[in-house]
């Protein structure tokens, strides 16, 4: 349960961080605000997950007398220590969300592919036995519905736009598709959850297919099935990009431990 909660926390934190890189750089002001609003929603969700993970970790180390976290010398674990003081190999986020922003189209596509999955996942999660995970998911679902709508509209607008925007979207699909399969392959810690990833994959494929068709794009065959798919993020094996993200994200706490403002 701890690992699963951290997986959800890390995935939302890293995507929030990526989207926040657009702050002040969006194509127009309204969309700059939109992508950073989405970043804030994701950051809020990740805080909820980290707070819960910290509580689970502290409870379990109280009962077992040992520190459940691989990082040494943390004492009482908090949402901040989990976000700022864990190493790359301890992060369990999806590979998809750590991929670079690229152009606006690539950022949009990454958001869409993930939000569409997240919406289906949280819909399942809100019915889980674990009440806190269910509550976080139910809370986040309404925000996620906004993200799905906003990013689908952009995928359609760009895919079905000019030749230039269409070509760029195809390039983005080429870059990102290989990271979608991982979403549907359960890590060992996911198996204890009662979530049917195969069912989610079917629905995801259908939704993505509808949006791509409307965007005049053909989805590559075999998400999480046939075709080469990268994986490993869920168990801490990342692409080179995560290290750079963490270097920036964790810089202040690494250089000035305990700094506050």
């Amino acid at each position, binding site marked *: 349960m701890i690992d699963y909660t951290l997986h959800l926390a890390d995935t939302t934190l890293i995507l929030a961080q990526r989207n926040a890189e657009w702050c002040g750089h969006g194509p127009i002001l309204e969309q700059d605000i939109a992508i950073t609003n989405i970043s804030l929603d994701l950051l809020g969700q990740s805080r*909820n997950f980290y707070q819960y993970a910290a509580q689970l970790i502290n409870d379990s180390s109280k009962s077992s007398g040992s520190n459940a976290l691989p990082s040494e010398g943390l004492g009482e674990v908090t949402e901040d220590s989990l976000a700022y003081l864990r190493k790359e190999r301890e992060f369990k986020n999806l590979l998809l969300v750590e991929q670079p922003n690229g152009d606006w189209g690539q950022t949009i596509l990454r958001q869409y592919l993930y939000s569409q999955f997240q919406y289906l996942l949280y819909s399942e999660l809100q019915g889980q036995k674990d009440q806190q995970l269910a509550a976080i998911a139910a*809370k986040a679902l309404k925000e996620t519905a906004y993200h799905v709508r906003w990013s*689908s*509209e952009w995928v359609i607008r760009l895919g079905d736009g000019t030749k230039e925007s269409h070509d760029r979207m195809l390039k983005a699909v080429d870059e990102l598709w290989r990271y979608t399969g991982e979403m549907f392959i359960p890590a060992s810690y996911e198996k204890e959850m009662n979530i049917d990833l195969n069912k989610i994959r079917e629905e995801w494929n259908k939704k993505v297919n509808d949006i791509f068709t409307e965007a005049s794009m053909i989805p590559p065959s075999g998400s999480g099935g046939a075709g080469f798919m990268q994986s490993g993020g869920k168990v801490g094996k990342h692409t080179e990009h995560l290290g750079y993200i963490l270097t920036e994200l964790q810089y202040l706490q690494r250089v000035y431990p305990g700094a506050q403002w």
Partner: protein
Amino acid sequence: MVNTVIISKEEIYSVLETVTDPEVPALTITDLGIVRDVIINGDEIAVVITPTYSGCPAMDMIASNIKLALLEQGYKNIKVTSVLSPVWTTDWMSEEGKRKLKEFGIAPPNPKQQVCRQELFAAAEAVQCPHCNSYHTHRVSEFGSTACKALYQCDDCREPFDYFKCH
């Protein structure tokens, strides 16, 4: 010395009615509907609040403002906790709150059933301009200055305004 004063829920609520949302200072937290419960156990006061959006950055400040307001009134043993379930909705905003929002220049949320499932590229919901009351308005952006608001402009008086999104 024995303290025999019994604290009532009502008196706590009357203090909470003075605590405002730092992002929308026209609204108190009770107008906003984010106070879910007040639990009194002897001299212990537990205030239970719920966030509007997961990432609402005002929550920490609201929690400390609640403590401060109660301390100023002489209450000592105060705990503020946050719960996520049941999920906050704009339907919990009081009528008084909606009136104050409009007075403040922010269009209050429409009733929930209108929006929460919008089709792609659907026409934006009709929102009344808080300045000139015209419905002749358009949405500039679904995301506004804070997570809970969208940006609109009135086509009659030409004023831009915030709309507190139905959620």
